[in-house]
């Protein structure tokens, strides 16, 4: 059984980033790049599933420039068996990513695609569902627990009202939420050791033009600071003045 885990290279989610002066994109000068945290959770989950079932093979895939090798190597160091880099400078929207992944699925033939629910750079939350639609596979998004049988997956997922549990036949797409697991720390020797694992570079299969275009990136209008009140009494009086305590 193969689990395919797509990983995206994103700006460090804890770094403070700004738009470029001309609004054409995000200024990444001096900013570190990481595996999208939700994708890292997906890699970790795949490794844990393999700990229970050694027959599982884990393939990680990334789409982008040669620099994405850094994130793929980290995923290999965490325990993935093989990496694929779709090396391209093409600009994709989520639909384009889903189409590229569809082609990878056709060649890798995974039973499960396990991926982050959203990337922390574009915050889209789209690609997993789009891929599932294109494959006509069932999906379970925002997973907080995953159990994998020979023919079905049981997933607890974070819905609006709380956690629900679903069952679906394989093959399927599962997207990860924050509390599925805590990814392991990989020390430098592990990353160096992972250099001997296979990393295949391939060309993109699709070159469809994106259906959206970024017009501009800008800083949001800042919320201005209000004022500090001196006491609970003053706070409650001020809330009453502003009509904020109508209930």
């Amino acid at each position: 059984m193969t689990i395919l885990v797509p990983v995206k290279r994103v700006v460090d989610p804890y770094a403070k980033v700004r738009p470029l002066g001309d609004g054409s994109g995000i200024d990444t000068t001096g900013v570190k790049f990481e595996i999208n945290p939700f994708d890292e959770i997906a890699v970790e989950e795949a490794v844990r599933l393999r700990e229970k079932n050694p027959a599982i093979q884990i393939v990680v895939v990334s789409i982008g420039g040669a620099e994405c090798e850094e994130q793929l190597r980290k995923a290999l160091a965490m325990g993935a068996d093989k990496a694929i880099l779709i090396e391209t400078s093409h600009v994709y929207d989520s639909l384009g990513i889903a189409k590229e992944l569809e082609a990878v699925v056709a060649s890798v033939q995974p039973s499960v695609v396990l991926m982050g629910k959203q990337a922390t750079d574009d915050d889209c939350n789209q690609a997993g569902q789009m891929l599932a639609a294109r494959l006509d596979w069932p999906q379970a998004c925002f997973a907080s627990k995953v159990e994998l049988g020979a023919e079905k997956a049981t997933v607890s997922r974070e819905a609006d009202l709380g956690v629900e549990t679903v069952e679906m036949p394989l093959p399927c797409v599962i997207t990860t939420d924050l509390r599925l697991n805590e990814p392991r720390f990989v020390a430098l020797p592990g990353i160096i050791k992972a250099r001997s694992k296979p990393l295949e570079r391939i060309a993109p299969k699709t070159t469809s033009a994106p259906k959206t275009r970024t017009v501009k990136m800008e800083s949001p209008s800042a919320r201005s600071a209000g004022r500090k009140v001196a006491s609970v009494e003053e706070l409650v009086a001020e809330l009453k003045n502003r009509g904020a305590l109508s209930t």
Partner: protein
Amino acid sequence: MSKIVGVAFSPSDVAGIQSFAAALGVPFDVIQIVGSPVLDAGAGTVFAAQLSDLSPADGIASGVHQAASGYSHIVAVSSMASKDVLARLAGLLDCAMVTDVIAAQSTTVFQRPVVAGTIIQTVEVLAEPVVLTFRPAGFPKQAPAGQSAVAPFSVPASKVTITQAAHKTGGRPDLTQASVVVSGGRPLKDAASFESIIGGLADALGGAAGATRAAVDSGIAANELQVGQTGKIVAPDLYIAAGISGSTQHMAGIKDSKLIVAINKDPDAPIFEVADLGLVADLYEAIPAIRALLGK
């Protein structure tokens, strides 16, 4: 010729769809999945499935796909359910999707937050139809209007079986719809303190309780109470942040609130830079004192 169909995952979404359609100046129909059809929001037709609970995403997406021809925009209020279904729908329609729209400049140019709300992206949709989710806080509420026609809507079978449904805990309003939200962070120590202090004030104000990621991670609060970039996005009339320092990720979830009140022991907490009213105090003393003053 533009025409919107809004997918309502709860009855209260219908008013949000009305607001969004008004902002675009485009007529609209509604596909309402759960509950009795809402017919006074100015929709042409409400296609109502009248389910008692949400069914899995793949079935709903197929049903909307079959009904979507003739519409330029397929839209929904941002929620876990709408992102689950509408992104799948965009895959079926082979069309673009824009997530979490906060403003519309035209029927094809939208603004949305990226990188935890630290940057606003203006995005142009280059082909119709387009699928999008929007945050209702950015679109002014409209008055009840007209009497919509009602028609049935059937949700096709799913490959997914819900074996255990999500149950709403307690009687508090939904976080994303409450007019008052009281949130707590790590200083709450444990689940019992969270419930009595944060939950207690929320109940006194008729509001919802929320939490930071740190509070949820440490088991103080339930997952679905997390407010922030990767949790719920809220925009209540009053947001009270107690023992919350104000990380970028948390701020991404609250900055559209009308009035933000921060209560924190640390006078240098970043939350004070954005709060309308700040009180430097220990929440264990301040919150009971607030309740005493309110007589609740």
